[in-house]
């Protein structure tokens, strides 16, 4: 049992913090938030410094480190700015599927491009009629002699309008029983004929991140664009979620910590009735709760990431981390807005944006209800 970060991990955390403090400009964040735009120049810089794809293998442009180190970076990024942090953390979204299951050629083609800032990735799982339940896909890929032909629509796709390639979960065997045994993952490059993407519209939060509906109308790609095994797509995606949920949990921990920092600072400055807000027991109890939730969420998240790096898959643990961290982000940002009062309700004071950016962590990568299903299923050994 050792809770101490290694020297290298401390250095990484510090480097991520210094980068975020230097580059995540508040006014720029507000501009991107208002315009619903991706912070491209800051993302490029983060890639050049090795923050994106830190967990990719060295031979494929990464830093050869683990999910744990990625979690440390993402937490620091989101702590400094919930919008920049989330957008950058998700810029390599689902690339891990290529990293874990892709062919050598696929890894060589995509991973160095993603980590160096030449490409953005997207994972297309959710469909208009299949959100939490992805056991059956309406998007179908038919194997023809010269390639796959894909038809269907995906929605709420992170990086949908800015991605350079899409990893698409398709039904490749309509007769498979149960249906999820007939699913496969196929890479579709940007610009493919019949591929279309449009933003889902104004969102409550994570407005610096693209979220789009992506449609495939007779899209043709070569047979070698299959990632992993044919018929194993569903399983590959579940394994990916085990990794990605630790990352989403770390965005939630960072968002919560960032909101807490601001609320603590304010409570020590603001005077009412002749004393600081921090001198009121009502405020003190809020701060104590917030700090306790954050610490618990962080420990769960670190354990989930560490466990994955040990080569173990434990969906119960990653679901607990994501469930608890997401709840913490929502509760802590709520209390942060409350502590700042009217000032917390306006865009200029940041916690308003943290509050909006927190909620998605209870929705995407599996809603909190799905996380509870996973946890309960593991507890009672549901078949």
């Amino acid at each position: 049992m050792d809770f101490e970060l290694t020297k290298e991990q401390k250095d990484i955390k510090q480097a991520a913090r210094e980068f975020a403090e230097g580059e995540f400009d508040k006014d720029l964040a507000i501009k991107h938030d208002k315009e619903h735009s991706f912070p491209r120049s800051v993302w490029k810089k983060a890639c050049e410094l090795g923050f994106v794809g830190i967990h990719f293998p060295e031979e494929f442009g990464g830093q050869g480190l683990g999910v744990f180190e990625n979690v440390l970076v993402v937490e620091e990024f989101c702590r400094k700015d919930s919008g920049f942090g989330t957008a950058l953390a998700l810029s390599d979204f689902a690339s891990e599927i290529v990293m874990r299951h892709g062919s050598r050629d696929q890894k060589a083609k995509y991973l160095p491009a993603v980590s160096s800032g030449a490409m953005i990735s997207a994972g297309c799982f959710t469909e208009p009629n299949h959100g939490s339940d992805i056991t059956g896909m309406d998007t179908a890929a038919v194997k023809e002699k010269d390639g796959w032909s894909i038809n269907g629509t995906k929605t709420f796709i992170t990086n949908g309008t800015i991605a350079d390639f899409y990893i698409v979960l398709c039904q490749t065997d309509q007769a498979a029983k149960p249906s999820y045994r007939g699913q496969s993952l196929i890479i579709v490059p940007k610009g493919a004929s019949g591929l279309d993407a449009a933003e889902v519209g104004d969102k409550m939060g994570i407005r610096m991140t693209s979220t789009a509906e992506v449609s495939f109308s007779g899209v043709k790609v070569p047979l070698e664009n299959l990632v992993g095994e044919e018929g194993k797509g569903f399983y590959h995606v579940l394994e990916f979620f085990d990794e990605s949920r630790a990352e989403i949990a770390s965005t939630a921990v960072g968002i919560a910590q960032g909101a807490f920092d601001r609320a603590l600072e304010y409570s020590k400055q603001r005077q009412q009735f002749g004393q600081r807000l921090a001198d009121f027991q009502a405020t003190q109890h809020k701060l104590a709760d917030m700090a306790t939730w954050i610490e618990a969420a962080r420990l769960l998240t670190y354990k989930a990431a560490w466990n994955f790096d040990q080569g173990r898959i434990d969906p119960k643990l990653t679901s607990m981390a994501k469930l608890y961290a997401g709840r913490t982000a929502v509760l802590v940002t709520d209390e942060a807005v409350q502590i700042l009062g009217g000032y917390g309700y306006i865009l200029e004071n940041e916690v308003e944006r943290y509050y909006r950016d927190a909620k998605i962590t209870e929705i995407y990568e599996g809603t909190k209800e799905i996380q509870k299903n996973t946890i309960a299923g593991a507890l009672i050994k549901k078949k």
Partner: protein
Amino acid sequence: MEILVCVKKVPDTADAEVILRPDGKGIKEDDLAFGINEWDNYAVEEAIRIKEAHGGRVTVVTIGVSDSEDVLRRCLAMGADDAIMIDGGPFAGSDPYGIARGLRGIAAARAYDLVLAGAQAGDDGFGMVGPVLAGYLGWSHATLVTSVSVEDGKVAVTRELEGGLEERLRLALPAVLTVQTGINEPRYVSIMGIRKVRSKEIPVLDLAKVGLAAGSVGENANVLRRIALSVPPAGKEAEMIKGTPAEIARKILDIVRERGGVG
């Protein structure tokens, strides 16, 4: 160019609540975040840039205890080639003369062309270590340096003076320069840099290794004695500027100009 850069780990007090210790001789440091002295970070960046342009090596040195090692690793990750730690134990409570004596041993022992240091430290703010070190070494020096260009056997520098003035100097090498903030834009530490220094050994030198006798540094060897720290009483000399918005703006501009805030 062989360059030595002297760095220090200091508490970040810019936005923190600073609380005096009960003995009045220092501040409570438990809750403060520590990092590289801001001025030193610019000095490290400047040294790396000189190396990149002219070749050579950059060595960073600090007088500190084991938890200062992260500051040295940070400099290595930025691009310094070597790091040296002088065991800070015997230097506890040292004034700038004691610190400069410790650094002299390093600077004199190897053939450095240039020693860079921050113009001052963010904690005690003496601004003395660089000039005193130059005095001990018998080298020329310049303080508050805002630009450096290396010429054959010489270095041309710009110094920042009061009132927005600049002074240009040419110094023979070897020389000691103390660097002002803003001289460059320090690079970020990259993950590649951190990985490169992962297994770098940082030697820790004791007093004998820097040519000093026991008792020659530390509080009892000080020339300067700190009597007390205190928080200054709140000033009552605020000047209320009256007039139309345009008149007020004009007066503010005049005041800022007068004090060298704008050119």
